[in-house]
C-alpha cells in the first residue's frame, strides 16, 4: 500500500496498471484523456509489461479492439465518455452479448447537442440496457479500488463492467490516494483465465446468429449472469476490503441512515458533497440519511429496500433524466420499495457540469422536509434568471424562483 497525492486519472491508470491488462486501447475524449495518456506512458516506458497499447481511430474501434483482444483471451481495458460512449454503443452491446469481461471507465459527461464537455450522468445511464455492469464511484479512492474490483467481478461473472466516475470532478481532481501494492493486487486478482477464447488449439465459433428458436433463452441466461453478479459484487468487495482495508465498492453504501426518516439516493461524486452537508444538517439537529448507489446495473433492489428501511421519504438526486418521462433512478427505487408506503421522488440537478453544492443538497433536504415535492419529478437547480431571459420574450412566460415541479412546467404550456 502506498499513499500518493495525485490526479484521479493517474490513480485510475495506476490501478488499471496494477491489474496487468494485456491490451489497452484508447481514443481521446475529454474528460477521459488523462487516464489513457498515463496508461500509454506506462506501456511505452516498460512499467506495464506484456501489454499492447493501441491508439485507435474512434471509440467504435476502441470497443471493437477490446472485443477482439478479450475474445483473444487477454485482460482488456479501455475508457471513454459521452459522445464516445454513444459512438461505440453498437460494440458495447456486442461485448456484453459475447460475454467478454472488458473493463471500461466512463468518465461521465453530458451528451450533446448542444455539445457540453462537463459532467452529468446522461452518457452512462444511456447504456442502461447494454448488458454491462455499471458501477459508480463516489470518490477517486473509490474509483481506484472499484477498477481493481471491476476486473475480478467481470471475469467471475463473464460480463463487461463499466466503471462510471464523474468527469473532471473526479478525473481531474488531485487527492491523496491509497494505492494497493502489486503483491496485494496479485493476491486479489489472479492471472486471467478466460472462460472461452480463440485459439487454434481448440477452435470454436464465437458470435453465431441466433434466431427466434433460442434468442429468448440466450437472453434469459444473460440475465441470470447479471443477477448472479449481485452476490459476486458483494463477495469481491468483502475480499478486497479485507486485503486492502479500504472501504470502497459494494452495491451501495449508507451514510447516517440509522433513524433517518428522509433519505437521499445519490450516484457518483455528489455523495461526498452530500455527506458534508448531512453532517452540517446533523449539527443543526436535522437527521438525513444518504444512500450512495454504487451498482446501477445490476440494480440492487433488495439491498436498496433494506437500506431505505421504514423511511417515509426518499429523494433521488439525479444528474440525468429521460425526455418525455421523468427520472431514471427513481422508477427503479420505486420498484425496490413496492408495497411500502415510502414516498419516492426525483430532484434533478447537476446537468452538464452545473455544480451540486452543499447548498443544493441543503435545498433539496429542506424542500423534502417542508413537503414541497408535490410531483415525482422536480427540476431543482434552475437558474431562473437565465431561463426567464429567454422565455419572457420568446414564449411570453416567466418562471418563479426556485425548483420547478413537473406539473408547473406542464402548466406553462397553458399559459403560453
Amino acid at each position, binding site marked *: 500500500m502506498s499513499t500518493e497525492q495525485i490526479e484521479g486519472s493517474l490513480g485510475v491508470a495506476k490501478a488499471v496498471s496494477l491489474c496487468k491488462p494485456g491490451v489497452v486501447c484508447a481514443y481521446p475524449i475529454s474528460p477521459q484523456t488523462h487516464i489513457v495518456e498515463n496508461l500509454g506512458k506506462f506501456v511505452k516506458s516498460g512499467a506495464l509489461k506484456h501489454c499492447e497499447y493501441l491508439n485507435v*481511430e474512434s471509440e467504435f474501434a476502441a470497443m471493437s*479492439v477490446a472485443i477482439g483482444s478479450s475474445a483473444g483471451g487477454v485482460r482488456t481495458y479501455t475508457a471513454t465518455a459521452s459522445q464516445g460512449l454513444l459512438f461505440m454503443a*453498437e460494440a458495447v452491446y456486442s461485448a456484453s452479448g459475447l460475454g467478454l469481461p472488458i473493463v471500461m471507465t466512463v468518465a461521465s459527461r453530458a451528451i450533446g447537442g448542444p455539445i457540453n464537455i462537463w459532467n452529468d450522468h446522461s452518457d452512462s445511464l444511456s447504456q442502461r440496457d447494454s448488458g454491462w455492469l455499471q458501477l459508480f464511484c463516489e470518490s477517486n479512492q473509490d474509483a481506484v479500488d472499484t477498477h481493481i474490483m471491476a476486473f475480478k467481478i467481470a471475469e467471475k461473472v463473464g460480463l463487461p463492467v463499466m466503471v462510471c466516475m464523474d468527469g473532471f470532478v473526479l478525473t481531474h481532481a488531485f487527492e491523496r490516494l491509497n494505492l494497493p501494492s502489486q503483491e496485494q493486487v496479485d493476491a486479489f486478482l489472479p492471472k486471467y483465465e478466460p472462460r472461452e*477464447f480463440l485459439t*487454434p488449439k481448440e477452435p470454436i465459433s464465437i458470435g453465431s446468429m441466433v434466431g427466434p428458436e433460442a434468442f429468448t433463452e440466450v437472453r434469459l441466461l444473460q440475465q441470470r449472469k447479471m443477477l448472479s453478479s449481485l452476490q459476486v459484487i458483494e463477495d469481491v468487495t468483502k475480499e478486497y476490503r479485507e486485503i486492502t482495508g479500504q472501504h470502497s465498492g459494494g452495491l451501495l453504501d449508507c451514510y447516517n441512515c440509522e433513524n433517518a426518516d428522509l433519505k437521499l439516493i445519490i450516484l457518483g461524486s455528489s455523495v461526498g458533497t452530500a455527506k458534508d452537508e448531512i453532517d452540517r444538517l446533523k449539527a443543526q439537529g436535522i437527521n438525513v440519511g444518504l444512500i450512495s448507489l454504487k451498482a446501477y446495473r445490476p440494480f440492487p433492489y433488495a439491498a436498496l429496500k433494506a437500506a431505505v428501511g421504514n423511511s417515509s421519504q426518499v429523494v433521488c438526486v439525479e444528474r440525468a433524466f429521460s425526455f418525455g418521462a421523468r427520472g431514471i433512478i427513481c422508477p427503479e427505487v420505486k420498484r425496490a420499495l413496492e408495497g411500502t408506503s415510502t414516498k419516492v421522488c426525483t430532484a434533478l440537478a447537476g446537468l452538464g457540469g452545473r455544480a451540486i453544492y452543499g447548498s443544493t443538497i441543503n435545498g433539496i433536504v429542506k424542500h423534502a422536509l417542508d413537503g414541497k415535492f408535490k410531483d415525482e419529478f422536480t427540476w431543482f437547480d434552475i437558474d431562473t434568471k437565465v431561463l426567464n431571459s429567454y422565455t419572457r420574450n420568446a414564449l411570453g412566460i416567466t418562471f418563479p424562483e426556485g425548483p420547478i415541479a413537473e406539473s408547473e412546467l406542464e402548466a406553462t404550456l397553458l399559459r403560453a
Partner: protein
Amino acid sequence: MLDKINFYQTGSNTVGNRLINPSMRTEQASVDRPNSLTCGHRACQGCGEALGARYAIDAAMKATSGQIMVVNATGCLEVFSTPYPESAWRLPWIHSLFGNTAAVGSGLAAAAKVRAELNGDSVTPRIIAQGGDGGTTDIGMGCLSGMFDRNDDVLYICYDNEAYMNTGVQRSSATPPAARTATTMPVGEEPGSDWGKGKDVPLIAMAHGIPYVATATIADLRDLETKVAKAMSFHGARYISILVPCPLGWGLKSSALTVTAARLAMETGFYPVYEAEYGQITSVRKIRQKQPVINYLQIQRRYAHLTGKKADPNVLARLQAMCDANIEHFGLLGDEAPQLNPAAIQAYERSKKV
C-alpha cells in the same frame, strides 16, 4: 524428362492437374486440404463468396501450418456459416458487428501476441479479418483504415460481390456503374447505379503504404492462393480484395456461372487483378483471352437493360471504355507495364463529361 516438358494439358489453369509436380498444384487440389469452411453451410447455390472464403482461408492455413484465427463481419458469409446451432468453420472464428471487423482483428492480433509472450509460445497465431464489400468499403472503412494506419498484423480480405447481398442487393460503394441494385433501379435517364461514383479500396489501401495489397478473383485460383500465401509472408496490415460473383444478386443466368462470371470480369478488364507492395504495384495478372465487355454483361440480369432491345449503345460503349481504361492503367494486356500511379476508375469517369 517429365519435369523438363513445361506443357501440362491444362497448365495451371485448372485447380489440379495430375501431370504437374504435386508441389506445384493448388492447395484446393489436395486431398487433405483444410476445408476451413466446410459442408453444410447455408450459402445459396453457386455462392462465389463461400468458394472464395474456402480458397483464401485454406491457403492461409497452409501458409501458417494452421495458425489462423478469423474475424468475420456481419453479412452473407457470417449468416450462412454460423446460424445457431451449427458452425461451418473448422478454425477459431468470431463475429462481432458489421463495421468493426478490422478493429476486432487488431484486438485479436494484439491478444495473440501478448498470449504468446506470456506463455512463451514460439508461434503466434495469425489473424484474418474478412467481410463483404459493404462491410469493408462502406461501414467498415473507418476501422479498416485505422488497422492500416497502425499496420496491425492483420490480413483483411474483402469478398467483393459489388453490393449488399445479405440485405437484398442494395448499392455499395463497390457497385459498378449502370448495375441494377434494389437502390439503383434501371429506371430514369441513367438506369442503374450512377456513373462516377464508388471507391477503389485496393488503391486506398495502397495509399496507406501497407506491406501488401492485392486483388484476385475466384476464377484464378492459383493467383489467389499465391497472393494469400504471399500476404501471410508479410507482417503488418495487408489487404486482398477477391471478386466473388453472387448468382442471386447479379442475376446470373444460372447458379453454375459464378466462376465463369469472375473469369469474364478479369478477361474483359472490368476487374483489374494485380498486387502491390508498400504502395507500389509489383505485378499484374495479364488477360489471357481478351473479351468484349458485352460478353460479361450479357450473362447478368443486373445489366439486362444494357443488352436488351431497348438498350442504349452509349452506355455499353462507356462500360467498354471503362474496361479499356483499366487495361491501359494497369497494363493488363501483353507486355504493357502498369502506370506508376493508376487512378481509380471513378476518377477517369468523373473526368469524362459524357
